[in-house]
């Protein structure tokens, strides 16, 4: 339970959720070793570890190689190109909303469960607040929350 709670927290409180929504999109990822990879994103986890298929890996010298499966550690990523056609706000809402609405509040004896619940509810409340307010910039909120602009 503890591992999942931490994963969820990392996912919901950072911009990683947006990168996770790139599953199924074709994009370019630039790595910290000056290499870049262009391919179809299969999977991204909460630590931004990424798997791609049909990938063209180009190293710092410009040499390219085609790979059927490419996996990279999240920490080794420098940039991720976001496709023009992607609606980022919608993607993030899709990511967050299901976790809040369908969650049943059971016995809160487990601390990890309680923490996840609070995080998710707080995030959803903050999102609702921003949506109704239509401000120039996002609400202050507790530190550690992402701020987004429509």
């Amino acid at each position, binding site marked *: 339970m503890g591992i999942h709670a931490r994963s969820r927290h990392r996912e919901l409180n950072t911009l990683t959720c*947006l990168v996770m929504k790139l599953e199924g999109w074709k994009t370019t990822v630039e790595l910290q070793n000056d290499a870049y990879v262009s391919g179809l994103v299969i999977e991204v986890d909460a630590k931004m570890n990424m798997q791609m298929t049909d990938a063209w890996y180009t190293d710092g010298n410009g040499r390219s190689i085609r790979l059927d499966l490419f996996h990279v550690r999240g*920490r080794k990523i*420098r940039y991720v*190109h976001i496709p023009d056609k992607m609606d*980022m706000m919608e993607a993030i809402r899709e990511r967050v909303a299901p976790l809040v609405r369908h969650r049943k509040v059971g016995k809160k004896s487990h601390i990890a469960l309680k923490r996840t619940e609070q995080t998710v509810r707080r995030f959803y409340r903050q999102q609702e607040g921003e949506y109704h307010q239509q401000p120039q910039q*996002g609400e202050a909120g507790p530190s550690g*929350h992402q701020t987004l602009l429509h």
Partner: protein
Amino acid sequence: MAEDGEPTIGTMAVEEPLDLIRLSLDERIYVKMRNERELRGRLHAYDQHLNMILGDVEETVTSVEVDDETFEEVYKTTRRNIPMLFVRGDGVILVAPPMRGGGM
């Protein structure tokens, strides 16, 4: 959470350094990154790790070469433009408003 006497910008309290970045949302900013890289773009989103979403971004990579004959230092810059970019926060050194004048 804002106490009386705290500096405020409009209706929002400035409590910590990250709040200053919030003020730059949807503005053009300058980001200095590791490995002699600089980004200039419009800030769409950020988080506490300084992961950022930048739009209309121009990346500048600076490299130094030493001339073989004159032993002068030659600074070379490479630029490119990307429409929408996610930047991983661990590469970010600093965030600032775009600099006016020299170095543009």
